[in-house]
């Protein structure tokens, strides 16, 4: 190959590798979804994952929402004062939290906590032959390990987003009423009257999609982990990075779909 063609070959190889990875993830996702409705089911595993992914993520999602709501109120107040529009703080905090920041930050925080944990756990199971052992014990690893995690994350994230929304709005309320001089009753009335059902629902739908992506990436990278500690470490990193990027990309697409039609 002539030196002048080498960069083209590199781009070609990278493109093929990317397409192969997308195809592989798509097949994995389709297989996982196809198992959602087919027995055997593992309700105890599902409950365990609901606890692990949903309940145990509450503190991190709640704290993120609380501080973000507070910071958002300060920023909107400072920005709004440039054109004498400080009064819009309750409305903008509410819409910003429920439509965007609640689901996106909740999704990213859960990606950091859960995708990493899932990839590390399943990756370790793979390198220690526990996944092979499952097969020899007549248990489908995809059904036993991936399906309960994907289902639990898809069900948990909307609940986490709803709780995060409420805490985020509370954070904005707390800062606005204690630091910026807003009236408590007026702040709450403005928030409640301004928000529409679709604002909240769209955020919850985003949460469900992000939950699916987080668990999918954790399971996919865990199941395809390389050998040894290095392989598991790489799978964990890839799971968090790919889940985060997919969340941000999916957020844009869903926002386009929900609010520009």
């Amino acid at each position, binding site marked *: 190959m002539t030196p002048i063609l080498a960069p083209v070959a590199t781009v070609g190889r990278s493109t093929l590798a990317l397409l192969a990875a997308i195809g592989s993830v798509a097949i994995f996702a389709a297989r996982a979804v196809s198992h959602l409705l087919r027995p055997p089911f593992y309700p105890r595993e599902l409950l365990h994952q609901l606890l692990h992914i949903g309940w145990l993520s509450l503190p991190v999602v709640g704290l993120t929402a609380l501080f973000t709501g507070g910071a958002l109120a300060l920023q909107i107040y400072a920005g709004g004062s440039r054109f004498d529009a400080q009064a819009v703080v309750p409305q903008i905090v509410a819409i910003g939290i429920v439509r965007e920041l609640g689901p996106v930050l909740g999704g990213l925080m859960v990606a950091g906590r859960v995708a990493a944990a899932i990839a590390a756990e399943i990756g370790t199971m793979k390198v220690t032959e526990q996944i092979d052992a499952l097969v020899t*014990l*007549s*248990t489908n690893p995809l059904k036993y390990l991936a399906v309960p995690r994907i289902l639990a994350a898809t069900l948990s994230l909307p609940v986490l987003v709803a709780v995060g929304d409420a805490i985020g709005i509370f954070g904005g309320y707390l800062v606005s009423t204690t630091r910026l001089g807003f009236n408590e009753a007026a702040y709450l009335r403005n928030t409640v009257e301004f928000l529409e059902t679709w604002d909240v629902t769209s955020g919850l739908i985003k949460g469900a999609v992000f939950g699916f992506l987080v668990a999918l990436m954790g399971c996919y990278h865990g199941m395809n982990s390389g050998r040894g500690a290095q392989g598991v470490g790489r799978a964990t990193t890839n799971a968090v990075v790919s889940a985060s990027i997919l969340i941000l990309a999916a957020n844009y697409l869903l926002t386009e779909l929900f609010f520009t039609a």
Partner: protein
Amino acid sequence: MIALTDVHKAFGSKQVLRGLTLDVAKGESCVIIGGSGTGKSVCLKCVLGLVIPDSGTITVDGQDVTRGDRDAFLARFGMLFQGGALFDSMPVWQNVGFRLLRGAQKRPKPEAREIAVEKLRRVGLTPDVADLYPSELSGGMQKRVGLARAIAAEPEIIFFDEPTTGLDPIMSGVINDLIREIVTEMGATAVTITHDMSSVRAIADKVAMLHAGKIRWHGPVGQIDTAEDPYLRQFVTGSAVGPIEAVR
């Protein structure tokens, strides 16, 4: 009972199995020996369907392993993995009774626990081990738990992958004796892969030596010390000098 015929398997450019042919009769204890990286584990994994061969046929009781009901097929097998492969998220008794707690062989939980405790006792572990987690056990105890799990559902065929690796000579002897006793008692067909010649002598009815992806020599265990094959001789004596390259 188990027949592998002209099985080939490569991983990328590395050809691991190059026409492996091996028969294991019903009730026989066959031990496959060979150096590291010669494809012993791949051979077992091909039978179980964990690795798909590139070519060749594998049958169990004349039935192609790639066809038919997979769950029913796997229900006939038990396997002891090299590292134990115990599920570290569940206590010992649930590991042993895994098959009895779900799927076609599901039993009520108290009954599954009772069977698990009985199997633990069979491999020399006391009932108080049942509620410990695998990470709380020594290497030898983990092997015994793995053995108890392999026999819990009373399989017809049991595979042992390096059953004594990492154990001291006394614990190796204990595991070897247990395997021999259990296989004889259950009338199971057993295939063991090992480097350990003391395991070979304790467990085997028949020995097959795998080299360069093929069976180099096979015969009754009583003939391994008198066989003429230079590869087998070198392996049995553990000599660094011989036809098998020391650096692989």
